């Protein structure tokens, strides 16, 4: 079996495309597929927002990069103030959501 070299600090090759796809969903553009499903959860007594993105495309993306992609998409689609309002940005695959008992 060949040796697989990985650089954990390297960006995912589809990083920008993933950001772009979430931006399209945030802008509610026409002909959107069912996923990614973006769930925004408000927090009582706080201006903060928790954002969960359910998507099968997360499979090969590291956790912190998933959060980064979500925050970048909000930054692009809704502006810096909206991005700074997000206290939790979490990307999960449908299988992970099932495992964690999350209903998104």
């Amino acid at each position, binding site marked *: 079996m060949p040796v697989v070299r990985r650089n954990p600090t390297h960006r995912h090759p589809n990083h920008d495309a993933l950001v772009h796809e979430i931006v399209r969903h945030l802008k509610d553009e026409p002909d959107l597929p069912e996923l990614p499903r973006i769930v925004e959860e408000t*927090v009582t*007594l*706080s*201006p*903060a*927002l928790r954002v969960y993105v359910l998507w099968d495309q997360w499979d090969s993306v590291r*956790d*912190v*990069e998933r*959060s*980064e992609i*979500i*925050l*970048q998409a909000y*930054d692009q689609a809704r502006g*810096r*103030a909206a*991005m*700074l*309002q*997000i*206290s*939790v*940005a*979490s990307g999960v695959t449908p299988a992970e959501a099932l495992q964690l008992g999350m209903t998104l």
Partner: protein
Amino acid sequence: MRASLPTHDSIQEFEGARHDRLWDGMTLWGYRDGAAGAAYMLGYSVEMALKCAYFRLAGLRVFDPIARPELRSAEARARVLGLATQTESFHSVQFWCDLLCKHRHDLLSPLDPTLEQRLVTETGIVYDRWWVDMRYKAEKLSRNELEHLAAAADWFDRNYPDLYR
């Protein structure tokens, strides 16, 4: 004892630890052989102060859990804001200070420039003299270095609320 401990971390828990470990550190500082323990406790209290200030600013309520998703989101936000400071497993006082300042700037609510400059200076003093892995090492700070660390920890204690308000 274990059963009575809270099941998750939160600002409330961290703020309690910030206060308690500061006084543990100050007490140990007074003992002849207490330098290593004092240094660890004092630096830890500063880490808690910076973490709590950031999470308060980020909109977490005092009882909200601080777990992997919250920490990961903080690291991701730092990257989006263009910060390259390493998290050092989320224990770096430099990381939390940089993120706090940058977040405040981008919220258009920066700290007073004099306070921010002092925050950066005091954080640098702590970063140079404290790191979380100290607890595994037999290294000793000189009396002079410990005094600088204690003075910085005291500054964070007195100015803590101003960091997130």
